[in-house]
């Protein structure tokens, strides 16, 4: 296990190197002079020169890249042009809502997706199976941000059950936090539950056809015990993979959901940074989320060993 994890950590180095390089190159993709674009049409030549020097854009490209690497390794992601604080500080301030939203949506996706897939697989071809899989197909196709708007219209505007938008910290007021988080988490998690349901059904169908299931049934065990105790654990590895992928997708989806529900997280931070051309913030958010994405995939790989002892990495 340890050898495997060390080996996997080493393979992350080139991936993260590409991530940092792509983030660095973003600023060089700006058409024309990036500094003029950042400062807008009212900037004087002196301001443009000063900013170019401050950002090191007057240096050769390879030198800029090495300096960028060095800064990132020191945890210095630069200074926001508009927020008047270091990018790292801005990221830390906005991380909580995004993390709460992502984990809540993941919980919703698992709670809907896994039981749906298992029930569909336990009764293949039945009305349950067809209804749940039709729901899963629609869940894959319905755009999450549009679903959010419809939820707001139905549950906030028409029925008045839940707030339409906003955020309360789970540490300050847990009850209010729950009320604010229900609609964003359900609308973000519903899409991903469809993917989990389809994979769970497929894996469970395969597991239920194995010899040991026939043996369990022959012993007279109930359908519930056979399904949940014997088949489910063996179908879990691919399901965990897809839950890991889901977690990574949710980080991206959270950006859009935060805009719809006016949640002050990383999503709103990056969109306002894009609109204000605050490039250090854009770079910082992208770098942090990509690194989180990579580390989540590593964690998923590590979890395999815990849930399936047949897997031996050494």
């Amino acid at each position, binding site marked *: 296990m340890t050898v495997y994890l060390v080996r996997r950590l080493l393979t992350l180095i*080139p*991936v993260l190197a590409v*991530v940092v390089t792509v983030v660095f190159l973003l600023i060089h993709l700006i058409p024309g002079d990036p500094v003029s674009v950042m400062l807008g049409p009212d900037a004087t030549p002196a301001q443009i020169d000063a900013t170019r020097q401050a950002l090191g854009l007057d240096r050769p490209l390879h030198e800029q890249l090495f300096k960028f690497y060095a800064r990132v390794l020191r945890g210095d992601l630069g200074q926001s042009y508009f927020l008047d604080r270091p990018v790292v500080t801005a990221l830390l301030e906005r991380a909580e809502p995004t993390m709460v939203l992502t984990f809540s949506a993941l919980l919703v996706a698992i709670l809907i997706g896994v039981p749906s897939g298992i029930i569909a697989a336990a009764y293949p071809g039945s009305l349950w199976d067809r209804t749940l899989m039709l729901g899963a197909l*629609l869940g894959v196709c319905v*755009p999450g941000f549009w679903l959010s*708007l419809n939820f707001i219209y139905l549950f906030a505007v028409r029925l008045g059950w839940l707030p339409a938008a906003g955020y309360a910290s789970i540490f300050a007021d847990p009850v209010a936090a729950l009320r604010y988080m229900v609609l964003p988490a359900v609308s973000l998690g519903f899409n991903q539950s469809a993917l989990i349901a389809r994979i769970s059904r497929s894996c469970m169908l395969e597991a239920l056809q194995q010899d040991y299931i026939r043996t369990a049934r022959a012993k007279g065990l109930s359908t519930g015990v056979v399904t949940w105790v014997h088949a489910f654990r063996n179908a879990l590895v691919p399901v965990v993979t897809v839950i890991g992928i889901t977690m990574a997708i949710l980080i991206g989806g959270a950006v*859009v959901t935060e805009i719809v529900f006016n949640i002050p997280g990383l999503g709103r931070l990056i969109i306002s940074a894009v*609109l204000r051309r605050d490039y250090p913030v854009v*770079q910082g958010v992208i770098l942090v989320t990509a690194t989180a994405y990579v580390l989540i995939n590593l964690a998923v790989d590590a979890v395999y060993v815990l849930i399936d002892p047949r897997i031996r990495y050494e």
Partner: protein
Amino acid sequence: MSDAAVARSGVVTRDAAARPSWLARLARNRNIGVGAVILAVVLLAGVAATHDPRRLNPAERLKPPSAANFLGTDEFGRDVFSLVLYGGQVSLLVGATTMALTSLWGIAIGLIAGYYKRVDLVLMRIMDGLMAFPAILLAIALMAARGPGVGNVIFALSVVYTPRTAMLIRSTVLSIRELDYVQAARALGRRDLMIAFRHILPNCVGPLLVQASFIFAYAILAEAILGFLGVGVPPYVPSWGNVIASGKNVIREAFWVSLFPGLALTLSGLGLNLLGDGLRDVLDPRLRVQ
């Protein structure tokens, strides 16, 4: 050997005679039929527009669906029905062009990586790095650098989705390159480029078509998300994402502004997913989901 030639030679096996052509299998697949019909409706709908989607008419703002405006009007008095129809054309243009570009770049990168082991490692680490970004965030970052515009949306989405196609083509090439007929072509002195395009690429077409249909669906959705966030095509261009975004501001008074473009987006996603599933079943049964 063609079917006719096989028949003439008298070596028709029972399997070959019974096996329908891939075109017949495509035509018979229910998913492909339903998916194609949905897409055709969206594509041809542009001719049915009743109003100019860019014409502002403040006197008619936020009117509910009626005989004059089938799906109502938005906050600027524009006809939502016509906005949805024209928006579909923008979305399909972005989706189709992104699909074509990702396929071209993916084929080039995948063939080179799969065929030349020396560059494989470097190319695949770059692809891994690009896949490490959440897709929509990388697209947002690229749009931040390039600015709004249809061309820039296509560029950003092509960069985001090319690694998936490149990795698929590479894995297919790796499984084919050691087969006897490729070795035979090499032994006959065929050039690498000829082998890659004449002997290996045709065998990648099945998985590529399936992947392309899914990328088409992802690109349409991603374009709508970028438009909704205000970083995609400019706001004056009628796209589904832009119309849904404008509907968000008036959802309390006029739910129909965001409802109908979203339904159109869902239907196209459904059509493309069914098409992709159908293509996978016909062209690549190994990938068929139970």
